[in-house]
């Protein structure tokens, strides 16, 4: 799947936001996320 992450195109295989964070290398880092300008962090339980 091709997505834009902060303006950069990325080809990823993850099907969930949690999976995407792992795939991008942020599994052990506190991050904030938004999808289409909607904050998602709370939904991840972070």
């Amino acid at each position, binding site marked *: 799947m091709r997505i834009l992450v*902060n303006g950069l195109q*990325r080809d990823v295989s993850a099907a969930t936001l949690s999976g995407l964070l792992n*795939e991008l*290398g942020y599994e052990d*880092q506190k991050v*904030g996320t*938004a999808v289409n300008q909607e*904050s998602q*962090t*709370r939904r991840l339980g972070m």
Partner: protein
Amino acid sequence: MSDADRLRLYGSEFGSRLFIGTARYPSPVVLEESIRVSKCEMVTVSLRREAGGTRSGESFWSLIRNLGVKVLPNTAGCRTAKEAITTAQMAREIFATNWIKLEVIGEEDTLQPDVFGLVEAARVLIKDGFYVLPYMTDDLVVAEKLLDLGCQALMPWAAPIGSGRGVNNPFALRALRAHFPNAHLIIDAGIGAPSHAVEVMEMGYDAVLLNTAISRAGDPVEMARAFGLAIEAGRSAFLAKPMTPRDMAEPSTPIIGRPFDQLF
């Protein structure tokens, strides 16, 4: 600074009335030392946007956390109310604070705040439980609206961000201070030299937030020390009630009359 003169904002107290930004320092060591010598107790930080593959945000956050100062996240770089709201919500999760320095930029050349977007975003964020510190122009009407929404502090500019011009419109800043004597007013942008900071503190502004004047100085650490001293000097001068300027001379050493105003 006496305990009685400590700055109280949203239930927190600050011994220093200088707040510092954390961007564009030559190195992490210089940033850390600048904050330490300035005696500042709150720093503002922006969200680092990453697209994977780097972990620069993590090391920066670790540095800030170890400074032991309060963190004021900001929405720098946001151009719409929606973008600022989303950024504030993400910042709350990352930095574990509901404080937010709200910026909604409306014009590219001056980075002037979009005050319409600012009021809209402040309304949403205050309802969502945020302690909002809005970066604004020196407009009285906007100030009134933001205070009515529940902002306990306003952050008017002295001049455009990063310009270092000092106070562009002293009349407007004096008017703002006079109109809202009980609001916390913090000068946020345009300060370039310690003398500018003294000027606004002497006007009665409660605090100053600045970044570039320190981070881009030839010697940021020494400039941070100078700003710390300037803020204290300006605050003391304000509390001491400066004399009223006169158009004509008045002898400072009268040869007739009493040597003191009060008899002893």
